[in-house]
């Protein structure tokens, strides 16, 4: 039977309209989701939503097996996930993104190979790409993803190498974990997230950290042919398959779950990845330290480090190439003083305008605000720092020893590319490399670990996670063994700013090398109050012969027992001449005398001016009166 087709003109028009409407809706929906454009309400929308698994299916509690929820699918239903993943926390793997100034690197450290290597996916000067040390993206995520909020190479199928294809299939992607930052639920356990990343449960980690599910098992123990639905016929003994269980009382009858989502990320969420612990024998308790003065004043990290839907969070420094007027207004200067071409945003959030009384203006050209106000005050013996990213502090099973590798030295003062001095943290890279045509190429970690472990592993100091103490003989032995493993160049050990190698007579030698320089990155927190800024006690805070700001020795932190490693001078990093700095500081011994002298001399000169001024004035009056007399007598 022939179908009764509507061939009338109004029918055709209505079809065209319908088609256009559908196409527009689809394209609009693709670009703008319901949660992308805030309507201006400052209230927080309540998130009672369905959980959606990585295969885009709604999760029902009676399903078997229960799948973890996917943030890409669950949160991405209302927020443009692809836009969010361009944000600073998630775009490290994108080579098209400007690297900006050096940031804290991920640090591969291993006492058994006496190595600590700064790594970053970004082009930060002095940091290596993981691939340069033979670390695959999978291994990189498995090792450092613990304190990443997801995204980057863990969430990019193009970044998965063919060799690791099956491992990625077992572990899943490390999607952006929106809850890492935006979950205000107190039972949200980011340490649990980290634990599951370490167990290679990338797909399950976000679910495990949420307050309404628990995950057991380890993808790390699963064979390559493991299937998340069908399992594997050849599971290793005692290996437990990753599995989710949800708290059923959290699900309503529509299988929806309440997420306690907050737009203003709580500081504690930031702290999970951005905590620092200063190692100081005089201050061993947590209460001995103060938090950043801004936080103590009631502010939050996200009051300055802001972002829109793109999540391209402000890093807060003036030279950030991404910075526009609004971002610049959130730098120290922008907020407290206003930028050079815009002062209308100065004082936002009640930022007081600093007086800086008695501080010559040159300081504001040569020093960043952070030099005087941020981080630990410089001391003769520079301090050591443990950080979340470097030491995994905040994790369930972290090595709490203060001397555990890597060793980060703080604060050192470094001149940046704009000639401004700013406080930095410093790491002496230590690694095994080949020297070919005076160029250092780091060896792959698997290669040198294979050689170093049997030689170094028995050393007693390793229990602490600290450096092993490498005697010259041990170092020579390792270098000798490494030489047999490499096809080109000379095996060297890079440490303390030098390279150590065996000469033709097998004698251990060392020399400076450009590529062995320390890795440094600027610090901005914790900000100290003005009353604790450098310079509050006068010029001598920095300009004295004993001032650590200029003259603290930066110890060459290394596993080597070798004597004669001269510490680095702070002035070297500042790009200043040591002797000139000493002379200049020396001159401040006479500064009070200079003040008295100038005061006395200016007093005398003013007196001379006044005395001779009065004398001259009196003679002018006399001359005028004589002139008038002459005129009146007609002479």
């Amino acid at each position, binding site marked *: 039977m022939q179908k009764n087709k509507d061939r009338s003109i109004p029918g055709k028009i209505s079809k065209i309209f319908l088609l256009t409407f559908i196409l527009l809706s689809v394209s609009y929906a693709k670009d703008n989701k319901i949660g992308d454009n805030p309507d201006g309400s400052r209230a927080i929308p309540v998130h009672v939503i369905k959980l959606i698994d990585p295969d885009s299916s709604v999760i029902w509690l009676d399903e078997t097996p229960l799948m973890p929820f996917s943030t890409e699918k669950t949160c991405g239903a209302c927020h443009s996930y692809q836009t969010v993943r361009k944000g600073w926390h998630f775009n490290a793997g994108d080579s098209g993104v400007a690297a900006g100034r050096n940031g804290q690197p991920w640090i591969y450290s291993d006492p058994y190979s006496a190595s600590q290597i700064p790594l970053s996916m970004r082009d930060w000067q002095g940091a290596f790409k993981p691939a340069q040390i033979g670390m695959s993206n999978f291994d990189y995520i498995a090792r450092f993803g613990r304190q990443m909020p997801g995204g980057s190479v863990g969430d990019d199928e193009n970044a998965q190498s063919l060799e690791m294809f099956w491992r990625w299939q077992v572990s899943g992607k490390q999607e952006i974990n929106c809850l890492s930052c935006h979950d205000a639920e107190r039972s949200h356990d980011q340490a649990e997230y980290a634990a599951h990343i370490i167990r290679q449960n990338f797909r399950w980690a976000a679910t495990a950290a949420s307050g309404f599910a628990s995950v057991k098992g380890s993808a790390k123990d699963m064979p390559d042919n493991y299937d998340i639905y069908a399992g594997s016929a050849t599971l290793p003994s005692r290996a437990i398959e990753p599995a989710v269980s949800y708290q059923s009382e959290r699900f309503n009858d529509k299988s929806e779950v309440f997420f306690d989502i907050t737009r203003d990320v709580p500081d504690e969420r930031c702290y999970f990845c951005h905590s620092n612990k200063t190692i100081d024998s005089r201050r061993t308790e947590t209460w001995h330290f103060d938090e950043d003065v801004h936080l103590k004043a009631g502010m939050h990290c996200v009051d300055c480090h802001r972002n829109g839907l793109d999540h391209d969070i402000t890093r807060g420094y003036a030279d950030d190439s991404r910075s526009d007027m609004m971002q610049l207004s959130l730098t120290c200067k922008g907020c407290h*003083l206003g930028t050079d071409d815009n002062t209308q945003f100065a004082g936002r959030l009640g930022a007081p305008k*600093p*007086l*800086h*009384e*008695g*501080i*010559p*203006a*040159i300081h*504001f*050209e*040569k020093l960043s605000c952070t030099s005087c106000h941020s981080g630990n005050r410089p001391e003769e013996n520079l301090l050591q720092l443990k950080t979340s990213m470097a030491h995994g502090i905040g994790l369930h099973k972290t090595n709490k020893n203060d001397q555990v590798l890597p060793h980060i030295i703080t604060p050192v003062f470094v001149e940046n590319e704009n000639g401004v001095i700013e406080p930095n943290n410093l790491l002496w890279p230590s690694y095994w490399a080949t020297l070919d045509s005076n160029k250092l190429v780091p060896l792959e970690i698997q290669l040198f670990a294979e050689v170093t472990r049997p030689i170094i592993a028995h050393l007693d100091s390793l229990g602490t996670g600290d450096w092993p103490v490498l005697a010259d003989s041990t170092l020579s032995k390792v270098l000798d063994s490494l030489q047999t493993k490499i096809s080109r160049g000379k095996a060297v050990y890079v440490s303390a700013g030098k390279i150590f190698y065996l000469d033709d007579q097998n004698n251990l030698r060392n020399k400076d090398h450009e590529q062995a320089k320390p890795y440094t990155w600027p610090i901005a927190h914790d900000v100290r109050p003005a009353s604790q800024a450098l310079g509050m006690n006068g010029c001598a805070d920095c300009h004295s012969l004993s001032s650590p700001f200029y003259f603290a020795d930066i110890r060459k932190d290394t596993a080597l027992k070798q004597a004669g490693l001269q510490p680095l001078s702070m002035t070297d990093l500042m790009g*200043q*001449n040591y002797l*000139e700095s000493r*002379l*200049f500081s020396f*001159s401040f011994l*006479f*500064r009070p005398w*200079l*003040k008295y*002298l*100038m*005061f006395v*001399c*200016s007093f*005398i*000169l*003013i007196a*001379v*001016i006044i005395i*001779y001024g009065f*004398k*001259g004035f009196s*003679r*002018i009056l006399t*001359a*005028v009166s004589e*002139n008038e007399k002459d005129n009146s007598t007609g002479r």
Partner: protein
Amino acid sequence: MIYQILVILVIVFFIILILQKRNSEKTGFREFSRNFLKEMIDQIKSFKEISKTNNGFGFLKKSVFSLAVLMFFILVLSSMLPVISGNAMSGLFLILHLLAAPVFVICVTVFVVLKAHDFQFSNAELKYLLDKMNSNVSKEKVKEPESFRLKVYFWIFVLFVITAILSVLLSMYPIFGTNGQITLLDIHRYSVLVLLSVFGFALVNKFAQKN
């Protein structure tokens, strides 16, 4: 930037004056440089000879004046060279500036105390000044006394030395904030620029008188 341009303008102005002199003498560059330097030193020396009275401090006056001139040049060079190159004064320049400044201040003070009496305006100079200001007196009839202009330069110099010293002295105390510090630094820099100009004009004036 404005200051940098002004410094360069002042320097260019003096270079033009020197080149004009060279053109008028029509000598080779080497010979001119030698003669010019010699003449400069002679002119500086001649500042001391303005005194008609001898109050018994001859050697002291000479030493103090010579040292002050030397320190003045060190101060000017150490501050102007970085400015011309577009940098802030730092490093060796700053140290030189700091070392020369107290010596200069002492020498200038001593010199001013010893010489102020000699640089008083005489009755004839004051009359010249009044005549200049009097519109009834024909300007052609008024003849400038020989050392009048030099004395004017001297007192301007003293005035701006005080400004330069005080601006630095005040900046060393926690009295002025950032804007105040910038203003003080500007006062110091522009005072020095005036000092340099006055010194240059005094030299030119001496040349003019000599030629």
